[in-house]
């Protein structure tokens, strides 16, 4: 078993590295092949005030006078040793620009994640345990509503209400505690919706299991039942969704940081877009891909350790790419939280898409072997 897990871990790590390198190549090609020559137009733009020598230096650094294949090879070999290139706008190393702002974005993203987890937990628990039925169904439809509101509207409304009307924070101090909290709320609300949907679906499933009735009949209190018994199996799929939403936090940071006036990766992206500073964009995309791939790899590798049902067959999981990508032959069935014939129909109001495939993807590892055997037998 142990060596099977190690082989699985090795294969997944290899795939992850390939994906990161390919991502860099794809972004590079997208930027260089797409029509328009933003590089030259930026360099020659009189507003940027580059002298002829500086232009010549940048052109030779990026090999802009060389064929695309050569440029790609140079860029890739620099990327491999951790050199992210030089900003065309400021002439500073990209790594330095990113390093200066990454801390602020990490704080924002971590707070957003915390807000999202608390919010999702509260919504899911409320959707099950709220004492008033209309309140429960309202809570059930809340994630769907959250997913329909643009991030910028959430941010603007929060600023209008809490900064302008209630005076809780001042927009000119974007790094104050309250301002950070509301920025995190803006970023966290859409994420919380996705987590809540999976969590509600999971709780629905677990609440129907026989062990729940047994626990109830033996006099276990409701709060204890949910926290001690139902929460753990229901939150396993949340790990997968959590990993998949990491990239979204970076994308959402572009809007959130712009609205709240924070300095961070998002506002760096926004500034680089308006100045057509492509090396910075390329570096941020590459970093985002690295973060996404690493987090999903960690989630995939942790999963067999967290869920004993998956552990038994986890090593047999094959062809699963990043996160839920490879819903391959394994993903044939619809699977509840890891149980082959689990049905999520009970999550009627919110049998939401987001939740669903995550569960299927999570479950696929658990049923892969039986399913393949069945195919072979038939």
């Amino acid at each position, binding site marked *: 078993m142990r060596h099977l897990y190690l082989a699985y871990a090795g294969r997944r790590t290899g795939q992850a590295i390939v994906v990161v390198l390919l991502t860099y190549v794809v972004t590079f090609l997208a930027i260089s092949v797409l029509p328009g020559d933003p590089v030259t137009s930026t360099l020659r733009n009189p507003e940027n005030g580059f002298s002829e020598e500086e232009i010549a230096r940048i052109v030779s650094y990026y090999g802009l006078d060389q064929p695309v294949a050569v440029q790609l090879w140079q860029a890739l070999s620099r990327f491999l040793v951790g050199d992210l290139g030089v900003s065309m706008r400021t002439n500073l190393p990209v790594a330095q620009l990113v390093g200066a702002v990454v801390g602020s974005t990490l704080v924002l993203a971590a707070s957003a994640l915390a807000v999202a987890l608390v919010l999702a937990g509260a919504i899911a628990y409320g959707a099950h345990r709220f004492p008033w039925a209309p309140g429960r169904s309202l809570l059930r439809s809340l994630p769907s509503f959250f997913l329909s509101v643009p991030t910028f509207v959430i941010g603007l409304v929060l600023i209008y209400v809490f900064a302008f009307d209630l005076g809780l924070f001042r927009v000119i101090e974007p790094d104050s505690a309250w301002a950070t909290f509301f920025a995190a709320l803006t970023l966290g609300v859409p994420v919380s919706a996705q987590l809540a949907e999976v969590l509600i679906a999971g709780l629905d499933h677990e609440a129907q299991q026989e062990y729940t009735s047994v626990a109830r009949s033996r006099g276990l209190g409701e709060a204890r039942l949910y926290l001690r018994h139902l929460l753990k199996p229901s939150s396993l799929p949340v790990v997968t969704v959590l990993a998949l939403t990491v990239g979204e936090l970076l994308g959402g940071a572009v809007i959130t940081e712009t609205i709240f006036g924070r300095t961070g990766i998002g506002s760096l992206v926004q500034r680089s877009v308006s100045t057509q500073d492509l090396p910075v964009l390329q570096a941020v995309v590459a970093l985002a891909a690295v973060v996404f791939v690493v987090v999903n790899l960690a989630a995939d590798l942790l999963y067999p350790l967290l869920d004993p049902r998956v552990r038994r067959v986890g090593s047999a999981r094959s062809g699963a790419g990043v996160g839920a990508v490879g819903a391959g032959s394994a993903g044939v069935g619809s699977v509840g939280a890891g149980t082959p014939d689990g049905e999520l129909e009970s999550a009627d109001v919110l049998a939401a898409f987001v939740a669903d495939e995550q569960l299927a*993807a999570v479950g696929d590892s658990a049923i892969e072997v039986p399913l393949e055997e069945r195919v072979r037998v038939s």
Partner: protein
Amino acid sequence: MTVVSLRLPRRAAAGDRSPATASLAVARRRPPVDVLVSIGVLAVVLVWSVAPGLVTSQDPADGVPADKLLGPSAAHWFGTDHLGRDVFTRVVYGSSSSVLSALVAVAIGLLVGGLIGLIAGFIGGWVDSTLSRLVDVLLAIPGFLLAVVIVTALGFQTINAAIATGVSAVAVFARLMRAETIRTRQSVFVEAAYLQGGSATHVLTRHVLPNASRSVVALAVLQFGVSILVIASLAFLGYGDPPPASDWGLLVSAGKDYRTAPWLVYTPAVVIIATVLALNRVSRWLRKTD
């Protein structure tokens, strides 16, 4: 942007049922009230986008300076902006580029992603592995970031924002289509079709595509809503057509500078939310009707 994915339908119950029975089930089931309301909302928005002149007689670009920053009233349902332009008229005229460009985005995602998924799932083997890695790559880049990069390279126009949004949706469609194709390809009735001498083309058009269509259509409707949000966000950041265009996201962005006139932000925002909410509801209903 949003992590969107579809559940793979139940194996035995839905998968092995022939498409004909499935469509009977649809006909039997009457849509619930909230779905009807959602369809109504979408119909209104569609009329706005196709024939804005039918709904409002005012000009979206022409204002009456004396009437600037008026609150919502019978004459100006959504109030007026800083140039005295009627906001309702601007929202109505903005819907065509907001909604139709989202349609373009979905079409790109559906066609390109669907084709990738179909080829990967149907042929399998090394083709599948190669295409799956490509999809992994697209998934690894945050959707919104990818859209931003593409729109930067293409130039700031609404149609480019639509293309960028479409490209970032390719992976989701490819993933679903691949899973659906594999599911159908392995089912008993496909085996039977082959045994009776059916060709690959026959299986593809008669079995694989009809069986995949339900989930794929539901995803397309959902992705329509997501695309509206992404395009509105790009317009909000100023990556779409510049003013006097009145994309919904652009209206919110322009309105946020007038603190005393909150309706400039709230009215287009409510229109966006209502449209996306309606699309999500219809999508979920389509998904569940089997």
